[in-house]
């Protein structure tokens, strides 16, 4: 991360779990417009956490 703060595997797993849960919710209730549109927004926010946190962590772990 740009400011040098540390990221651990639990944080990464939490982000990915949130993503899975939102996707699950969308599958369950996506026929309801209110569920669908808010899941869409949640997933966009989670995608930013992936860029900021998960991608750098995975790269560091792979190295």
């Amino acid at each position: 991360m740009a400011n040098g703060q540390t990221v651990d595997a639990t944080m990464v797993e939490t982000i990915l779990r949130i993503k899975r849960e939102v996707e699950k919710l969308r599958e369950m209730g996506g026929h309801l417009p209110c569920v669908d549109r808010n899941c869409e927004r949640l997933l966009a926010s989670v995608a930013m956490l992936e860029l900021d946190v998960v991608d750098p962590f995975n790269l560091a772990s792979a190295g």
Partner: protein
Amino acid sequence: MPRENLRDLQLAKFKRILRWAWEKSPLYRRLYDEAGLVPEDIRTWEDVARVPMLEKEHYRTAQAKEPWPYGDSLCVPLSEVTEYHQTSGTTGQPVYQPDTWRDWEWQSECWSYIMWAMGFRNTDRVFLAFGYNVFIAYWTGHYAGEKIGCQIIPGGGLNTVERILKMKELRVNAFMATPTYVLGMAETCRTKLNIDPASLGIRRILCAGEPGASVPATKRRIEEAWQCDVYDHVGATEIGGWGYECTAKPGGPHVNEAMYLVELIDLETGRPIEEPGRLGRIVITTFDRHAQPCVRFDAKDVAMWWDKDCACGRTFRVLAGGIQGRTDHITKVKGVLFSPTSAEDVVRRIPELSDEFELVVERRGDLDEITLKVELMPECAGMEAAVREKLARDFRMTTNLNCHLEFHAFGQLPRYEVKARRFKDLRKPGQH
């Protein structure tokens, strides 16, 4: 993040967006097919330079096709596009810019990096002095400000006087506008409202849209007028906000290397420039914008790397002195390379001159001639001879060129809100 890790991350992200563009966009597929390139060919940093550059004209051509208005540069179903913006059209037909909601979230994220680095926090009340419309301008500043937790005051639909009065009424402590407009607001404060802009209590100004806030004399003028910190942002509609000054003020913007790959390419050889101090053409890749990706886009700007680490602790590289000019503005006059940005610095170092100026290059007979039009400040009306001598000397020292000077009464030259057009090259093609 250490730089070696950052570089690995960048290469991985470059490959990911390249594959996306190649798979989803007929525009990119054509471009790469013509070059005989497939994503698997790109393995190392040396391979990156093999990827053909994209220019604004590519977008224009692609956007003449279906689906309207994005044509085959579009990488997602039209139903997923939620945001529309367009370029200003300064250099031709405007380019249409689609974004999905995720792209838009990404744009806000990029601007959040920018605003956070400039010191914006949830205690700030921020005024946006721009007309909210089809131009992307500060829309992303609006959303990023919200994301950081600032109070955002939308100043669209108000004229300059109304904006200043609203800022005063609400006691805003920060605002965003083009450097030209920030100077114009200060002038309006003094000439139409009899208000000292410094009395408004502004603590920081975010400038974008033009490189002025990285031109030392312009930055100093703004800081002196408003008595606050002034920060430069660098970006473009097709790219996003990719550079920003931090509170350590190293003398140029950091490049957001987590979200973008910024390459400097030698203007003559086309080779990548890694060392500091050499001017190069800026070529940019956005890693995570999907509706209309931007892979090795020629931004037509020139800059050079800085040779030091920034005191703020960020490992993102810094462009020394910000954007040094436009490749399509840097031109030969009388055989000498000339950048109009250098004239801006000359004019604004002279306090007897107003903020406005205009630069015209034309062919007279067999010779190029530069005319620099300036205005004396109202209180300096009797000082033309002395200022003329200093201006001519400073211009010659800075550019190695002479110019014809025209002095105009204060207020006679055009005022701009966005994208000032102060440089006019009236020579015909072939006369450059």
